[in-house]
């Protein structure tokens, strides 16, 4: 027994593998399991009750019907379009506002804690009600428009909430209110971690402050940007109660988003239609993300 045997590679770092087992269990059982269930259900005609046995899937199989219906539904097309608009505008502005606020906060200001809390608090409040408050403010009949008109500017008009061409932008406004503070906090933290030496060096070289930010600091913040990107992007794909509380998807269907369609169909007796819509989202996400994840995260891990 004096010679240590070369261990089976499967058991190398066994503790690490055991410690990661809860994650692996959750991924295999919940994420992969649910995904398989979702995709399989989307090829059936199930209505209210979910099914789980192969026999039941066989009995209810309808092929591509749900997808044919999905892509022939104008509301779904509107939802996808809105997701694209919302996703791009929300992510873009959240990054810009978050970054600008963080830069402002980074100027060694007084009462930083107060400002930081003001920008962050919307994140803590349930959106069922804050959405309603936004709906009041944006409502032309008794919100901002009426108030400004009562103050004497009779021709003032701000009716985005009830205007079908503009309603999705009100969702962006309220979404940014809720989410940009978190982006600010993450960005600020990123800025704080930049070594003072860098600033010194930049100042010595006579580089203007704004160029130091854009050309030196931002590239150094890449990892925090990636974390923010995942948080912001997944938040916009999942956006649900925001729209529900603010516009209910209206006027008409003009501000519908995919998660509203999915939620409704899952639970109004069109379960298979809801899973078909989820499968489309899932596939789209996977196509966009997986190559990026492999490139971005694959190279960095230590071996």
């Amino acid at each position, binding site marked *: 027994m004096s010679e240590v045997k070369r261990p089976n590679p499967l058991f190398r770092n066994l*503790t*690490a593998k055991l*410690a*990661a087992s*809860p*994650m*692996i269990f*959750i*991924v295999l*059982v*919940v*994420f992969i*399991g*649910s995904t398989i269930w*979702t995709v399989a259900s989307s090829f059936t005609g199930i209505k209210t009750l979910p099914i789980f046995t192969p026999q039941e899937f066989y009995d209810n199989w309808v092929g591509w019907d749900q997808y044919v219906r999905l892509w022939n539904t104008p509301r779904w097309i509107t939802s996808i379009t809105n997701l694209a608009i919302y996703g791009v505008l929300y992510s873009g502005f959240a990054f810009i506002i978050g970054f600008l606020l963080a830069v402002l906060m980074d100027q*060694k200001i*007084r009462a*930083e804690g*107060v400002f930081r*809390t*003001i920008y962050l*608090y*919307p*994140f803590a409040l*349930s959106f*069922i*009600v*804050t959405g309603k*408050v936004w709906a009041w*403010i944006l409502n032309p009949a008794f*919100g901002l428009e*009426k*108030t400004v008109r*009562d103050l004497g500017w009779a021709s003032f008009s701000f009716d985005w909430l009830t205007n079908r061409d503009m309603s999705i932008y009100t969702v962006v406004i309220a979404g940014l*209110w809720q989410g940009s*503070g978190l982006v600010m*906090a993450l960005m600020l*933290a*990123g800025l704080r*971690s930049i070594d003072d030496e860098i600033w010194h060096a930049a100042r010595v070289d006579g580089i203007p402050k704004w160029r130091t930010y854009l050309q030196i600091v931002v590239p*150094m913040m890449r*990892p*925090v940007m*990636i*974390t923010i990107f995942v948080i912001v992007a*997944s938040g916009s*794909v*999942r956006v649900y109660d925001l729209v529900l509380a603010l516009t209910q998807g209206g006027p008409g269907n003009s501000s519908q988003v995919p*998660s509203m369609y*999915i939620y409704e169909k899952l639970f109004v007796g069109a379960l298979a239609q809801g*899973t078909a819509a*989820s499968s489309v*989202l899932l596939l789209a*996400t996977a196509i966009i*993300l*997986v190559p990026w*994840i492999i490139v971005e995260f694959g190279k*960095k*891990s*230590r071996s």
Partner: protein
Amino acid sequence: MTAMSSASTVTPNGAKPKPMFAPGRVLIYTLLIVTSIYYLIPLYVMVITSLKDLDQIREGNIFIPTMKPTFDAWIKAWSAACTGLNCTGLAPGFWNSVFITIPSVIVSIAVASISGYTLANWPFKFAEWCFTILLVGSFIPYQVFLYPLVIITREMGIYSTLYAVIFVHTVFGLPILTLLFRNYFASLPEELFKAARVDGAGYWRIFFNVLMPMSLPIFSVAVILQVTGIWNDFLFGVIYAGPTNYPMTVQLNNIVNSLQGVKEYNVEMAATILTGLVPLTIYFLSGKYFVRGIAAGAVKG
């Protein structure tokens, strides 16, 4: 207040705040104050609405405060608002929410931090594939998982118990938290890890004795994210926790979503602010770590 003052001491890294009235400073403060107004308007409307009575809400403008404020709505929201037959306000659900939130936050952060640590420092191919799937999973709408998770928790024998809701929160917290922790641990100097290995420290000793003491900040980031999400959750609590463990948000939902009868907007606003107080307190208390946490971590990745 102590929280606020301690939070504001974090700010400067270096020189003292500059005098307030230099032209550049005026611009900075103007911008900060103007943006603060945008953020504060909804809170302002909520607070003044909660202090009005129903007649004043019906008659008045939403932006104009009342001359005769009353705290009745706050008292009602906390202890007397009815949901169905139970006229007990938010108060009884408060402790259920606490009992759901504390273990859920602890377990979800424990699982995610260990997973992130493994991915950063003890990676193996299979775990990396799992991580990829997790990141994709963070984009799936939650509702899709509802029924499968009912079946999974039922087969685990924990459906309709606190364990089920803890498990579910762990599942949904996993993607973002694992990402946070993985980036953080990967950004710590590799020499630390190597030196500990040379000293003969194993997996757990490195985690608890070397990395954790350096990582309190990232843990508070995770706490903030999780407390916010779990405290405000309604759907999972009501579906997985069982009726004896219904969280406070069930009452909040019942106050806010009743469609019949007179809408008590003032009670709704008070109930929402009351419900939000716990996460807000956590923000105040940990603001300091929040900023330093990310700072020390994710950046150097």
